[in-house]
């Protein structure tokens, strides 16, 4: 049957058709929907969110050792977290097939960097496959499992945002029937003490030779001959863009990206007058080909920054002299105001940042919706490196007395459980004076609302234990642990102030749920009494999308404020900072 699926949905379907028994990961754009789809549509697969990618990867290894096919999903930076098991699992190899999805984010639509994880596969010396659309995403998952078992190796499937989040037509098939696998004790293979690991490293290099041979033969690497003198070497989504721009060139399309089929590509290049390597991000193919003495050009014409597109490919093609005209606008573009993403009306993170701004402390930040506090008008976050970094950053800055007014780390609930616990332990152990604010909105909001170990539910919807942040912090040795309502501005100021002044580490937990997930929270809205509004703009400065400049101006020509009753959730923070008390509750019912 034909279905219209995103790349991520297609990967989930592929896992189902490949007979995967266990699927595990940690959310992260653009990978998140893979496991969500598995949990929703393919209930025969056991699926779970782990607290972070390292644990997820290790759970996947366990399933593979147990003889089952395992799928592990994460975004590109997730593989940094999982790098430790990843690098050594490459040595042991698998029992049941093992595929890790690395969903890269060229252009950083929703990421802190745009690292090119094709290098990661080469680094670990394991094969990677790179689909260019949804159909291939599904097919390649099946192929990846076959390769994994045939060559006894973990395999990486490298997705990118445009493959993960674009939709295309996919032909669905019935799942394969696999013999039941089981654990086979093999200490020399799976216990990586140096004496065993040394032998396994030999196996890894021998395996690489076999994979190289396979790469020369597999249909995953395809030649397309249209009788052109122009040869294009490309793979992944870039293939689709180039086909859009010059459909009639000859193509060498790479689907099996490590090790590359050097001999085949050399022949292809020899048969063409002009040879271009077109790849997104780093010159990964290009460097390998050039090192093999193959004459190609690539990054000379195509940027290594950001994602490609038909437009950007056409610019490079023009520069390379292949086409005469790049795509261009027929209608003049318009310069407009920006519309940056912004904390939602009623977002429980807002109050904490209003208070921190008032206190003038240094704020080491972390990753989640709350990172939006760096943007105007709040502009109160001083660092954001990777998940969990806020606490370590704060400890270091505080040790060198980097900021007179103190250092506060802010971290979300999911992020704290992902990699903040060890940081907090460090703060206790090393007698740090930091204050750690856990912004507990009881969900992984940034990535669209996933469960985690403190929400009380698993990915498959089963009720489970929920970790208690207060008990946890106390168990780590934090003496002062307090909870505060983030809709109470005065209290926030008071609690933060006390905790920042206190000797030793302290933890403050804000305790309101996300207003969007798991259910929409909409209390009675507020409104502005225009006669009382003096246009001071204090409410504008809290950056709430429900508060807009009104057409009515003050005597000094400043816009008064207006509240959109269909957006306002009634958190009341704006009313709390309104000196003339012009913001009041709406009493009559509102149609939203």
């Amino acid at each position, binding site marked *: 049957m*034909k279905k*219209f699926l995103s790349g991520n949905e297609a990967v989930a379907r592929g896992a189902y058709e490949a007979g995967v028994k266990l699927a595990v990961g940690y959310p992260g*754009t*653009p990978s998140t*929907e893979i496991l969500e789809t598995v949990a929703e549509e393919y209930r025969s697969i056991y699926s779970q969110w782990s607290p972070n990618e390292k644990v997820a990867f290790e759970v996947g290894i366990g399933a593979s050792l147990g003889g089952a096919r395992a799928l592990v999903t994460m975004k590109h930076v997730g593989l940094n977290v999982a790098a430790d098991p990843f690098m050594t699992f490459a040595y042991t190899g698998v029992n049941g097939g093992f595929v890790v999805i690395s969903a890269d984010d060229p252009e950083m*639509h*929703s990421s802190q960097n745009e690292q090119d994880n094709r290098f990661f596969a080469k680094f670990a010396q394991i094969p990677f496959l790179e689909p260019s*659309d949804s159909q291939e995403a599904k097919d390649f998952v099946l192929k990846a499992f076959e390769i994994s078992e045939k060559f006894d190796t973990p395999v990486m499937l490298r997705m990118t*945002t*445009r493959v993960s*989040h*674009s*939709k*295309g*037509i996919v032909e669905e098939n019935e799942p394969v029937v696999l013999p039941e696998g089981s654990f086979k004790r093999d200490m020399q293979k799976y216990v990586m003490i140096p004496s065993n690991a040394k032998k396994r490293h030999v196996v890894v290099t021998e395996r690489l030779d076999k994979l190289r041979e396979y790469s020369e033969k597999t249909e995953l690497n395809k030649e397309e001959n249209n009788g052109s003198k122009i040869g294009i070497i490309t793979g992944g*989504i870039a293939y*689709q*863009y180039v*086909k*859009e*721009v010059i*459909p009639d060139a000859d193509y060498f399309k790479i689907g099996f990206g490590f090790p590359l089929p050097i001999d085949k590509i050399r022949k292809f290049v020899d048969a063409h007058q002009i040879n271009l390597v077109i790849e997104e991000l780093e010159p990964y193919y290009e460097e390998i080909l050039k090192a093999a003495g193959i004459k190609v050009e690539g990054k000379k014409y195509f940027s290594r920054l950001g994602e490609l*597109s*038909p*437009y950007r490919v*056409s610019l490079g093609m023009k520069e390379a002299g292949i086409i005469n005209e790049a*795509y*261009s*606008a*027929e*209608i*003049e*573009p*318009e310069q*407009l*105001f*920006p*519309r*940056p*993403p*912004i*904390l*939602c009306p009623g977002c429980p993170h807002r109050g904490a940042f209003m208070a921190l701004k008032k206190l003038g402390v240094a704020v080491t930040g972390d990753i989640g*919706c709350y990172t*939006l506090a760096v943007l*105007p*008008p709040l502009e109160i976050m001083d660092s954001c490196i990777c998940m969990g970094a806020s606490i370590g950053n704060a400890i270091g800055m505080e040790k060198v007395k980097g900021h007179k007014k103190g250092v506060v780390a802010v971290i979300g609930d999911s992020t704290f459980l992902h990699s903040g616990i060890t940081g907090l332990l460090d703060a206790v152990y090393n007698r740090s004076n930091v204050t750690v604010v856990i912004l507990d909105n009881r969900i992984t909001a940034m*990535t*669209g609302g996933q469960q985690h170990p403190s929400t009380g539910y698993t990915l498959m919807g089963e009720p489970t234990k929920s970790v208690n942040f207060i008990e946890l912090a106390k168990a780590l040795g934090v003496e002062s642990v307090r909870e505060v309502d983030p809709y109470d501005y005065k209290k926030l100021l008071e609690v933060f102030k006390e905790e920042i002044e206190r000797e030793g580490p302290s933890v403050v937990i804000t305790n309101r749920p996300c207003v969007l997930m798991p259910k929409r929270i909409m209390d009675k809205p507020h409104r502005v009494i225009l006669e009382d509004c003096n246009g001071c*703009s204090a409410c*504008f400065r809290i*950056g*709430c*999308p429900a*508060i*807009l*400049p009104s057409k009515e101006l003050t005597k000094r020509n400043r*816009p008064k404020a207006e509240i959109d009753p*269909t957006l306002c959730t009634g958190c009341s923070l704006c009313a709390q900072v309104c000196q003339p008390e012009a913001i009041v509750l709406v009493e009559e019912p509102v149609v*939203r």
Partner: protein
Amino acid sequence: MKKNTTNVLIVGVGGQGVLLASELLSETAMSAGYDVKKSEVHGMSQRGGVVTSHVKFGPKVFSPIIPYGQTDLLISFEQAEALRAVDWLKKDGLIAVSTTRLVPPITAGGKFHYPDDPIADLRKKVKNVIAIEADKIARELGDSRLVNTLLLGVISTRLEFNNTLWEKVMRQKVKAKFVDINLKAFAKGRELAAKAAE
């Protein structure tokens, strides 16, 4: 069946239902036998940012992203967002735009300005503009979230797919309890487009 690829760009602001609209259009084109691809970026979209969805259909579609300047149909659920995307349109392309006006808080500071009359600006640049008070009509129909199917109804008059096909897809893809009201909004959109053409 047409030989060329048709490129449709749907834009709006997070929460306006851009993704459902592009999904309905894509599924309809697929039911009609076309190859279809669509692309959008999730992630920050829920937080009030711009949402853009590209839909391409034809005998064989390669890139899921429309080449710059090659859009046949631009659908915008917000006035200023149509203006932001206008350079993606072909000169003889068509715009269907809702008069919805979502002024972001960033314009409160005085540094940025929301255009006074984006629709007038559009008309200066493009011949074929259908502007619909979709917000108002949707609310009259009972739910402000119907803006998306209303505008789909409008552009459906410029596409070759028949009404039965659209309806079949809507029945499959829209949540059961919202099907009827969405069909009503769709029909209203067709009616308005016919009027606009007169």
